[in-house]
C-alpha cells in the first residue's frame, strides 16, 4: 500500500490547551480523505501542521516518505492549499497572481501550466481581471488554479465550496474528481458540507476535541451508527460526549 501522507501520533499543545491529542492517519495515493468535526475539534490545527505553518509538539508527518520537519521546503514544493479564508492579492489580475505563484513554486513552462489551468477551470475571461473584483465563485476558481499551479501531489482543501452557489459548487466538485483521477493526487478535504464529503471521499475521519473519534467510509459510518446520512452521523458524534468512551 502506497501512502503519500503518513501522520503518526501527532500532537499540538498550546500553553493552556491540547489542540490535537496524538492523532494518526494515512492518505493513499489517488485518495480523497474527508476530515470532519465541529468547530474547535482540531481540524484547522491539523491542516496547519500539514502545511508547516505550525510545528507539532510531538509526533511526525511524512509526505512521500520524507519527514516534514527535516524536508520542509522540498515538501512544500509538492503540496498546496485552498481555503475561502485565505485570498490571493486582490489588486493583481488573475494572470499576474498565477505568474507570481508560478515563480514562487519555480514552475518550468509556466505559460503552458497557466494555459492548462485556464482551460480546465474556465478562466479565459478572468485572466486579465483584478482578483479583488471577482465574484466568490470566480475567486474560488482563481484560488483553485493557484493551488494547482505546482502540480501538487498532496492537496489540502479547507471548505473549498463554502459560500458558493450550487452550480459553481458542483463544478468545483466535478473538477476535483476529474483532476484527482487524471493526476493521481492525494487530497485531504475538511468540510462541513456532508453531501460533498459523501460524494468525494472514500474514507472519512471524525474529529472531536483534538482526537479522531471514528473513521471509515461514509457508508460504513452511516450503517455503524444507524443513521440515514452522514450529516446525522456528524450530529450524533458531535453532540454525544460519551459515545466512544
Amino acid at each position, binding site marked *: 500500500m502506497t501512502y503519500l501522507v503518513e501522520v503518526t501520533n501527532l500532537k499540538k499543545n498550546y500553553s493552556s490547551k491540547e489542540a490535537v491529542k496524538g492523532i494518526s492517519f494515512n492518505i493513499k495515493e489517488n485518495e480523497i480523505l474527508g476530515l470532519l468535526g465541529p468547530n474547535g475539534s482540531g481540524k484547522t490545527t491539523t491542516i496547519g501542521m500539514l502545511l*508547516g505553518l505550525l*510545528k507539532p509538539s510531538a509526533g511526525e508527518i511524512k509526505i512521500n516518505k520524507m519527514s516534514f520537519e527535516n524536508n520542509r521546503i522540498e515538501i512544500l514544493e509538492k503540496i498546496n492549499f485552498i481555503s475561502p479564508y485565505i*485570498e*490571493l*492579492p486582490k489588486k*493583481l489580475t488573475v494572470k499576474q497572481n498565477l*505568474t*507570481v505563484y508560478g515563480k514562487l513554486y*519555480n514552475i518550468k513552462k509556466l505559460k503552458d501550466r497557466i494555459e492548462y489551468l485556464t482551460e480546465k477551470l474556465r478562466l479565459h475571461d478572468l485572466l486579465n481581471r483584478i482578483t479583488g473584483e471577482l465574484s466568490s465563485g470566480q475567486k474560488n476558481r482563481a484560488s483553485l488554479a493557484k493551488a494547482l499551479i505546482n502540480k501538487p501531489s498532496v492537496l489540502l482543501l479547507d471548505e473549498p465550496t463554502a459560500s458558493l452557489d450550487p452550480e459553481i459548487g458542483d463544478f468545483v466538485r466535478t473538477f476535483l474528481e476529474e483532476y484527482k483521477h487524471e493526476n493521481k493526487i492525494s487530497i485531504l478535504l475538511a468540510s462541513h458540507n456532508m453531501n460533498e464529503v459523501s460524494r468525494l471521499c472514500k474514507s472519512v475521519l471524525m474529529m472531536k476535541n483534538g482526537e479522531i473519534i471514528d473513521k471509515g467510509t461514509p457508508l460504513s459510518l452511516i450503517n455503524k451508527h444507524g443513521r440515514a446520512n452522514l450529516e446525522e452521523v456528524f450530529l450524533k458524534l458531535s453532540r454525544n460526549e460519551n459515545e466512544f468512551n
Partner: protein
Amino acid sequence: MNLIRIYGLFLRHFYLITRSFPRILDLIYWPTIQITLWGFISNFFATYSTYYNNAVGIILTCAILYDFLFRTSIGFNMLFLEEIWSRNFTNLFISPMRISEIITSLVGTALIRALIGLVPAIFLTSPLFGISILNLGISLFFLFLSLYIFGITLGILVSAGLLRYGPSFENIAWSTMFLIAPFGCVYYPIDILPNVFQKIAYCMPLVYVFEEARAILINQTVNIENIYKAFIINFIYLTIAISLFYYSFNQARKKGTLINIGE
C-alpha cells in the same frame, strides 16, 4: 537560494506598485514634500546661522540621507504588512520559499521603492535650492549603503516582531524611526546630546554617517574611520536582526501566530 523565487516575490510587489497610480504618487509625494520643506529651512539657516553659513545645504543633504533611511525601513515593513492586509500571508508561507529568499526579495524591493520616491526629490534640490547631494563625492555611496543596511535592519527587526506578535505589532512598525531619530544626530552634532544619550547614539551607525556627512560638507575632509565604524555596527545589528527573524519564525510556528495572522 533560488533566484526565480526571489524574483517571484519581487514581481508580486512590482505588479502591485505599477498597477496603481496612487501608490506611485504616494511613494514620490512624501519625499518630495519632506525635501522641499527642509530645503527652505536649510536656506533659512544658511542665511542666518554662523554654523551653517559656510556650507549651504548641510541640513538638506542630511534630510535626504535620513529620508532614504526612513523610506528603506518603512518600505520593508510595508511589503511585509501588505501580505497581512491582503490576507495573502498564508499563501506566502506555505510556498516553498526559504526565509533567506523572502528577506532577500524584500530587501531588493524595498530599495527600489525607496529610490522611486527619492530620486525625483533629489533631482528637485538642484534647480530649487542650488544644492547637489553629489557634493559628498564618492563617500556618498558608502553613506547611502550604510543607511540602506540600517534601514533594512530595522525593517527586518519590525517584521520579526510582526511574525512573533501578529498585526498588533503594527504600531511599532510605524514608530521605530521616530524612536531612534533623536539619537541619530541627523540635524545636529552629537555634542548637543546629554552624555547618556551620546553613549546610546554611539551604539548606532547613524551618528557616524551624519557626522561624516557634516564633516565632508563643512571641512571638506573625509574621515574613513566613521564609515568603517558605521559598517561594523551595521554588520552586528544586521546579524542580530536576521537571527531574530529566524527565531520569530520558529516561535510563530510553535505558538500558531502564522495561522492567526493568515486568516
